[in-house]
């Protein structure tokens, strides 16, 4: 109906000196206008690789992408560099984890916003500066006039992340991707940034993709949630379905390992670590760490099962 983005059977491989990394192994999801999708999983599960391929930010020479990433019927994997310009910043834009390294260290922060207006909106220097200043105020930077002329090393992490957000929304993208946008910040600042994102979503009617390893964050803002493990989506459903009725053992383990998710206040961390992604898996990737594992989990890839409606999960032995 109002689908902005449709990803299907997306695979991303990296050619490295140690071999081929299968970072994303056939992912499907879609995103509707004004909705928020959460992508959750431990670090190293392929979340960043997945969302970066939406903007084609990988080094093309060393990366092999296949499948479809459709914006209004156009597969962005087939677009020319020139056509990609029409996507980046306009259709979708992105905020990264660490604001300290997300900005060019030697350019004034105002200029880092204004340059986009000059390059893409053909504004004059004065118009672009005015627009940039307005944007700085919108994301809550004070005193904006003074900050405009400062360099990234002169601002705090929270301030920088606001600047990064201002930059990302400058061309009013339909989709804003936030990759661990609050992970590097302390708790109070985290909340401020999340509130800012929620406010922007409401005001602009933007769709959000929120990538995080923290279930607390997705609980607050997402309509639907994809749980990712070892390059695959393990469970997908509405936020309510995932929280009230988690079907995959990995989802349940993740929920009980987050402070806000742990029922009865008991935090249980998942033993072990996500696998390296060099070889294609023969069985369930979560099998070695799974409390429900059985012999067949090791032998064959589990299929996607439907729990109810849109709620699906990739496990043969759900509880």
């Amino acid at each position: 109906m109002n689908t902005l983005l449709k990803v299907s059977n997306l695979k991303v491989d990296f050619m490295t000196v140690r071999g081929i990394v299968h970072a994303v192994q056939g992912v499907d999801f879609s995103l509707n206008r004004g909705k928020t999708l959460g992508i959750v999983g431990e670090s190293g599960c392929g979340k960043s690789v997945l969302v970066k391929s939406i903007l084609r930010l990988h080094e093309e020479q060393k990366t092999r992408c296949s499948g479809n990433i459709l914006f209004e019927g156009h597969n962005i994997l087939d677009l020319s560099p020139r056509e990609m310009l029409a996507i980046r910043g306009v259709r979708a834009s992105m905020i990264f984890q660490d604001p300290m390294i997300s900005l060019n260290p030697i350019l004034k922060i105002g200029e880092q916003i204004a340059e986009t207006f000059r390059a893409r909106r053909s504004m004059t220097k004065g118009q672009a500066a005015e627009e940039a200043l307005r944007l700085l105020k919108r994301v809550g930077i004070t005193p904006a006039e003074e900050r405009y002329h400062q360099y990234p090393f002169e601002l705090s992490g929270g301030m920088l992340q606001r600047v990064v957000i201002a930059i990302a929304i400058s061309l009013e993208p339909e989709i804003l991707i936030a990759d661990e946008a609050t992970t590097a910040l302390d708790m109070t600042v985290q909340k401020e940034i999340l509130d800012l994102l929620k406010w922007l979503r409401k005001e602009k009617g933007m769709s959000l993709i929120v990538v995080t390893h923290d279930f607390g964050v997705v609980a607050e803002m997402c309509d639907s949630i994809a749980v990712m493990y070892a390059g695959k989506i393990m469970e997908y459903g509405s936020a309510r379905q995932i929280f009230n009725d988690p079907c995959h053992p990995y989802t349940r383990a993740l929920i009980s390992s987050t402070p806000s998710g742990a029922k009865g206040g008991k935090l249980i961390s998942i033993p072990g670590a996500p696998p390296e992604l060099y070889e294609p898996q023969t069985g369930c990737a979560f099998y070695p760490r799974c409390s429900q594992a059985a012999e067949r989990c090791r032998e064959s890839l589990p299929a996607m099962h439907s729990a109810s409606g849109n709620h699906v999960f990739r496990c043969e032995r759900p509880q």
Partner: protein
Amino acid sequence: MRYLRYILKRLCVFIPLFLIVSLIVFFALRFSGVDPITVMLGERQATPEVMAALRAQYYLDDPLISQYLRWIGNAVTGDFGVDYINHQSVSTLIAQRLPITLGLVILSIVIGTILSVALGVLSSVREGRPTDRTISVAVLILVSVPPFLLAIITLLLLSVFAPSVGFIGAINSVSDYWARIPLPAFVLSLNMVAIVTRVTRSSMIIQLKSQYTSTALAKGLPAKMVIWKHAFRNALIPVLTIVSIFAGTSISGAVLVESVFSLPGLGGLLTQAIKTNNYPIVQSALLVLLLVFLVIGLVTDLIYAAVDPRIRKSGKGITA
């Protein structure tokens, strides 16, 4: 404003540095044990009265420190006195030859920087592809040939393929100058090109992989702007360091290239004066060459600070 303050700070370091260098030049020559009067007289004999008169004329009986002060005091007004043997004005000798050496050094830095930046950036954006490989191989060959060999090979090639190009005689006009300086300057820049291309390439590759480059792409900037305005300006800092090192060594390279291409520069003057122990020329020519060296360092620091706001803020330089 902050930049102006930075320039002032650097100048405050520059002046004492220059004085220290001049002290070293002066005293190193004075303590070398050669007697100026012997140099002046050469093969001739002289009475003690004549020798005393010469000593007085050159203030050789004054304490060393006042001799130094007289020399450096006059030097800053552009007067280097007269030499021991022909009693010519050292300032005139240097002024005649400086444009050639300076032209070689500056032109070779400019040519070398432009070439290696172009090649290095091209290599980095084509990392791992045929263009990058070709440039790497060319650079590897270039780096392994010593500069004097490059100069001689060029000369041989020219004498075979373009025998009409003249390489001897005086330089009497501006058109002579521009006919004879660029090629030796290019040859002088080749070793620098080899190294600086590599540094530019690796520095650019790091910057192109950095997070802020992704931010710049993600916000919708055209690739050209991301490469030049963002990645390149950040990549410039290590590149500048290596360029400034080469700029310094290109002064000694220039002396060599001058002699291969028979250019009447400071190098020839200096070697001739050293052979004849003609100290007024040696110490003043050295001082001028070292001044060029220091100015290159100063200019590098000023460019650094223009590129990187963090350096402006700290007030520190890289070279001194």
